[in-house]
């Protein structure tokens, strides 16, 4: 059977739907981008005005801003499904549950990628960090980080979407899980910006790849349980 192809088609349809809705409604990107910008600005106040210190802290600030804004973005993307009980409708379709998860995670990944790239650019400008010379490793890091946040965030948004106090519970549950991702992404970014003097960049990227794969598999295997009430 070409079951896997069907699943890929379903996932693409869901992701495309999210993308179209996002392009028209801009529920997830605009507000969260603004939020990330404010976070960066406040970090500048908290650590500045010494430019050297800010540049040193830039990788950490970059990823904290991305993670905080990312949780909001993924949550917004899931709220799209609760506005009119669309998640319930989604659960009714005769398609593999993991395809639904893959579709939502893919949509989240697209949003996270936009967010990551823009925040990276903002960090480059605000904290006087030379991102142009190391653009390839930086972009790889952002892609892997975005994927991990989307994988974990989508999954936990599914856990909390029908819960009381979900605004608190979502970050509370997601942030500790994302700790390895934050660690790996910050280290990879720092290594990339420094020109990778210790040759550790590859190891950190591998850690991110492993994290992404494991979390995607865990999400795909269990998301179906969350769809049934």
């Amino acid at each position: 059977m070409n079951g896997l192809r069907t699943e890929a088609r379903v996932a693409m349809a869901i992701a495309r739907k999210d993308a179209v809705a996002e392009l028209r409604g801009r529920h997830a990107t605009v507000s969260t981008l603004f939020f990330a910008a404010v976070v960066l600005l406040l970090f500048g106040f908290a650590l500045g005005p010494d430019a050297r210190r800010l540049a040193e802290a830039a990788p950490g600030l970059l990823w904290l801003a991305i993670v905080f804004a990312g949780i909001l973005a993924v949550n917004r993307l899931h709220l799209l499904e609760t506005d009119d009980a669309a998640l319930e409708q989604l659960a009714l379709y005769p398609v593999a549950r993991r395809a639904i998860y893959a579709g939502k995670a893919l949509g989240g990944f697209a949003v996270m990628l936009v967010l990551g790239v823009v925040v990276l650019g903002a960090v480059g400008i605000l904290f006087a960090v030379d991102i142009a010379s190391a653009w390839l490793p930086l972009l790889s890091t952002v892609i892997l980080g975005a994927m991990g946040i989307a994988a974990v965030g989508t999954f936990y948004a599914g856990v909390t979407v029908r819960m009381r106090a979900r605004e608190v519970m979502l970050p509370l549950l997601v942030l500790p899980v994302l700790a390895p991702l934050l660690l790996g992404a910050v280290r990879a970014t720092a290594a990339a910006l420094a020109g990778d003097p210790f040759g550790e960049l590859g190891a950190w990227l591998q850690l991110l790849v492993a994290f992404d794969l494991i979390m995607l598999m865990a999400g795909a295997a269990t998301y179906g349980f969350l769809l049934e009430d």
Partner: protein
Amino acid sequence: MKTRILGFVALAAVVSAAIVGLFVVPPDLNQGDAQRIMYPHVASAWLAYLSFGVTAVGGVLWLWRRDLRFDAVALSGAEIGVMFTAFAIWGGMMWGRPVWGVFWQWEDPRLTTTALLLALYVGYLLLRRLTEDPERRATRAAIVGLVAAIDIPIVHFSVEWWRGLHQTATIASPERALDPAAPMVFVGTLMGTLAAFSLAWLYLMIRRYELARAELAREEEARRGRLRAVQAAAANLRSQEEAAR
């Protein structure tokens, strides 16, 4: 009854382990008396990991077999695991201050990992409190517990690398006491403490599980009671109608 005997044995074992650790074992050459904290600290950390393993397995069994008793096991593991995690962190801090000069040593991967563990499983317990329906609660908790358990080794590796790849001076950690060169008395005391704490853990797990079962049974009884009441009222109505006819 057997559980009660286990309780007494565990109590005796923990008290003797504490006496041995505090007064019998000689102080470490380098670290002096502070080293004594290592015994309950390491034992607590070990049992915390065991508890969270139990939580993950219980959750998977619930998803698979749909028997709420497995969820009760998972809950017991999480609650007791959080307690032992807190002990491990506390012990680590009390041990770090005299040895390192600071309560919190970021360079120590175990301490930071354990702190994240605490955050993960406090979240797990909160999630349980915020979901009323027993089946929904069990499902959500099972999934969160499973992902948390999967996350633990990744957290551990990343934190190890975080330190290791950054080429900082290696510092003393509790595990260093277990070098092959370490005197056997230290190893023996640690193993003894571990055994004693494990007995206490087993006793507490059994009691916590009994409590969870009792709560489960009460919930179930209430649910069935409600059903019976509705059904009886309907049957009553039906027989009245038939009598009238």
